[in-house]
């Protein structure tokens, strides 16, 4: 069981490495979106500090949304996805492997880069730590839920916009708990409850979405 998971993760990581430009576009998008907000609302430090958690979380969410369309697209186009559906290994595990690799190349860099952007918004040190932690818990859930949308919109006209419409409502709890954790910490309330709820979101996404994604893939491949 673990073997197939590792095989798929390795495969997708190697593919991502050979196409590394894609990874950087997602990251660049994240940075640019986050940097646009100060230009829009003005350079007032206090305002920016209050806005920072929400802005950074929304940017991470949009960056995920932008890149998750590619999760199955290439495999769908060249016929590999069909072969995955015919594997003797459970499709849920293959899906989980693909999502894991996807998170490692798009989610993890966001987590690592977020402190830098936090500094840009003059977040206090403690809040920056909470920001990284909340992103580390939240972005895997974003990737998992995004997988369902990517599988459902496979090969459809205007798939990207449709994907946003399907998935954004599902992202609401993660956004609330994630950005809320940073906000609560900055306000001196302690981020524990938020982070635990975020972890619960991640675990329930882990429980539901590989199955939903596998089912969606079978439906879309017909």
């Amino acid at each position, binding site marked *: 069981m673990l073997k197939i998971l590792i*095989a798929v993760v390795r495969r997708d990581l*190697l593919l991502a490495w050979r196409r590394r430009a894609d990874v950087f576009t997602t990251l660049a998008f994240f940075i640019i979106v986050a940097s646009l907000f100060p230009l829009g609302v003005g350079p007032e430090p206090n305002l920016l500090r209050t806005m920072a958690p929400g802005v950074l979380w929304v940017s991470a969410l949009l960056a995920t949304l932008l890149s998750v369309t590619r999760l199955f697209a290439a495999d769908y186009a060249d016929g590999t996805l069909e072969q995955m559906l*015919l*594997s*003797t290994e459970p499709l849920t595990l293959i899906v989980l492997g693909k999502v894991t690799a996807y998170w490692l190349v798009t989610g993890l860099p966001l987590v690592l880069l977020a402190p830098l952007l936090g500094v840009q918004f003059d977040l206090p040190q403690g809040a920056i730590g909470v920001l990284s932690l909340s992103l580390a818990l939240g972005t895997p859930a974003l990737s998992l839920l995004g997988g369902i949308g990517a599988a459902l919109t496979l090969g459809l006209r205007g798939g990207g916009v449709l994907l946003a419409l399907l998935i954004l409502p599902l992202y609401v709890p993660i956004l609330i708990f994630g950005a809320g954790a940073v906000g609560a910490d900055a306000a001196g309330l302690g981020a524990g409850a938020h982070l635990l709820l975020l972890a619960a979101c991640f675990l329930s996404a882990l429980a539901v979405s590989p199955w939903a994604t596998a089912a969606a893939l079978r439906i879309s491949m017909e």
Partner: protein
Amino acid sequence: MLEVDQLACMRGDALLFRGLSFRLEGGALLHVAGRNGAGKTSLLRMLCGLMIPEAGEIRWRGTPIRAQREEYNGELLYLGHANAVKDEFSALENLRVACAVAGRAVSETQALAALEAIGLAHRIDLDAKHLSQGQRRRVALARLLLAQAIPLWILDEPFTALDAPAVALLARTLEAHLAGGGAVIYTTHQDVLIASTSLERIDIGEFAPC
């Protein structure tokens, strides 16, 4: 081994065929014929379990294939229109990764031997994006050489884009598989002679609704 009972296929609004039934035993070769758009690929995808038939049932060793998905996948090898070859991988990487994802990991020696047999010995480390269409098809077909033990092969236009020596090689491979008790279902628009003790032919056009 494989029983197909009263199969019907609907594509969008159109009923492509209905009432299609046949049985396939080990060692049998089944050629699925029909004009373009008759539903050949749809039929093959149904036989793989990728598509749910509009009506009817497909049984493998007496059990409906939907009830035994992973077990059935273990006895089945499908090559579709698309080669499932990744541009970013070399021929060797493609073959090994494809086998691993299918759940039948092979060693590097086995993979090399298969690629050599299919005539790609000198192209093993080249990224697939530099390969010609025929060479990419060969990479996909190399999986067959590693799958002699798998009883059912379902091949969608396996001869497309291949040159004469490769066509002959593939025909010999299919013959060896049939002689070993395996079954093959395939479509083709080319006339290729495959020696088989039991050759059957289904023309999908005969099952089209008036």
